[in-house]
């Protein structure tokens, strides 16, 4: 499970950002924290404010209100100090097209000493990167490999990753997940945005859902798994006893079509089965883990915190 501890590595305190004279805040008073050795998934639909939060943490843009600290240092005033310990990969990783991969890594390595040359070579080998080709000649996925290498090469204490696996093939995604696990084991705090739910399930310990600039939900993956494991698709011979079902404590009816219903259950299951025992049930499916459905529910549902 890695070296997850209660030591807070990243903390956002009512962090807000307004672009220009826009009436709407791109990031609206977001507060959260990431512990060392924890992988925090920052999720949300396009334009929700994920990249804005990441760009604020990297001090590419300055906050309108609120503050944030990384390893106890203020993101605005101590940005240079912070970046000694940060590995960053942007959503649209940009390269110098005329440089080779090796030259690019040398350049970035001169600005931020890698852990060792041997470690960089190991990363190149693991990701099957092509260091002698010009970056402009590489496919998006192959360029992305150099993005990952430059983010990991100095074995940082903090990783800030914006959709890190975009363009990577499944084998390389798998290698990336292993790198994340290794970073976790070293105690690295990872703040990562992603649209790939399987990736989030696989790598994250906790997720925050952002919509319209606001953090609307924060859960551990373990909590989500519990919720997901208590999802039932029930088919009745006759009408769905919706009224009776809704009286069950901890139930949430998510879908009801004809004589079928989908319910999420929190807590004990006995009250649900007591109701079902009184009805003519023809089929019950306890569905396998499906976090994607829950994530999509968060994306679509109304703001729960406001």
């Amino acid at each position: 499970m890695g070296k997850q501890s209660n030591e807070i590595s990243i903390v956002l305190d009512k962090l807000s950002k307004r672009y220009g004279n826009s009436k709407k805040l791109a990031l609206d008073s977001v507060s959260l924290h990431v512990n060392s050795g924890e992988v925090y998934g920052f999720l949300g639909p396009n334009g929700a404010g994920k990249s804005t939060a990441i760009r604020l943490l990297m001090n590419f843009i300055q906050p309108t209100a609120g503050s944030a600290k990384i390893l106890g240092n203020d993101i605005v005033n101590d940005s240079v100090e912070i970046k000694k310990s940060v590995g960053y990969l942007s959503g649209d990783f940009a390269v110098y097209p005329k440089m080779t991969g090796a030259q690019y890594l040398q350049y970035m390595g001169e600005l931020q000493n890698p852990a060792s040359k041997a470690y960089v070579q190991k990363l190149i080998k693991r990701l099957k990167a092509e260091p002698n080709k010009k970056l402009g000649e590489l496919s998006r996925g192959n360029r992305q490999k150099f993005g990952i290498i430059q983010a990991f090469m100095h074995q940082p204490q903090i990783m800030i990753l914006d959709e890190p696996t975009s363009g990577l093939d499944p084998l390389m995604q798998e290698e990336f997940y292993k790198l994340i696990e290794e970073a976790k084991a070293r105690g690295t705090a990872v703040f990562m945005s992603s649209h790939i739910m399987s990736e989030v399930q696989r790598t994250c310990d906790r997720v925050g859902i952002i919509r319209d600039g606001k953090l609307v939900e924060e859960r551990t993956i373990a909590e989500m798994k519990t919720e997901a494991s208590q999802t039932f698709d029930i088919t009745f011979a006759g009408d769905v006893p919706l009224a009776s079902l809704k009286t069950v404590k901890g139930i949430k009816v998510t879908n009801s079509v004809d004589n079928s219903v989908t319910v999420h259950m929190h807590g004990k299951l006995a009250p649900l089965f007591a109701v079902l025992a009184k009805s003519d049930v023809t089929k019950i499916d306890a569905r396998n883990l499906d976090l994607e459905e829950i994530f999509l529910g968060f994306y679509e549902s109304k703001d729960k915190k406001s």
Partner: protein
Amino acid sequence: MNSIVKWTCKQRKTSTIWWSVAVAGFIFINMIFYPTFKNDAEELQKSFENLSDSALQFLGGSSDFFSPIGFINSQVFFIMLPMILGILAISLGAGLLAREEQDKTIEGLLARPVSRTGLLASKALGGTVILGAVSLVALLVIVVTAQAVDLGVPVSALAQTSFVCFLLTLTFGAVAYLLSATGRAKGASIA
């Protein structure tokens, strides 16, 4: 910081070579014809001395085109060299930072432990080194060609004038860089 200067120069290596070749070519072509009218310089000079004041103003306020110093001034230092170095300086000033912003490669630099001031200074220094290198090539070609055509102007005078030319065009580049960094030229601002 030194790395940014080094890699800025490395990235512009090919274009710097081409700029140097162009400057050298222009200087050489303009100076190589000096021997063809060197012996008639006095008579040619007299014909220009009879020009009206307005015509002289049009020619830059001087009628000295055929003495060694007048020749090098009119052919190299008066328009040609400042113009070529000026174009280079302005293109460097406007492009060095704006290009990084446009291509979004600047994020890769700002993600490192490099201050904004450090980045701005390094890029400016990189541009100055490139401009300096092309100016130095220009000076070398001027000195060598002056010797070849037996111009008879002291090397120190050529070096001083070339240096002033470099400083003048560096000012143009600095203005372009300032505008670029504050977002008034192409690209957005990081300042």
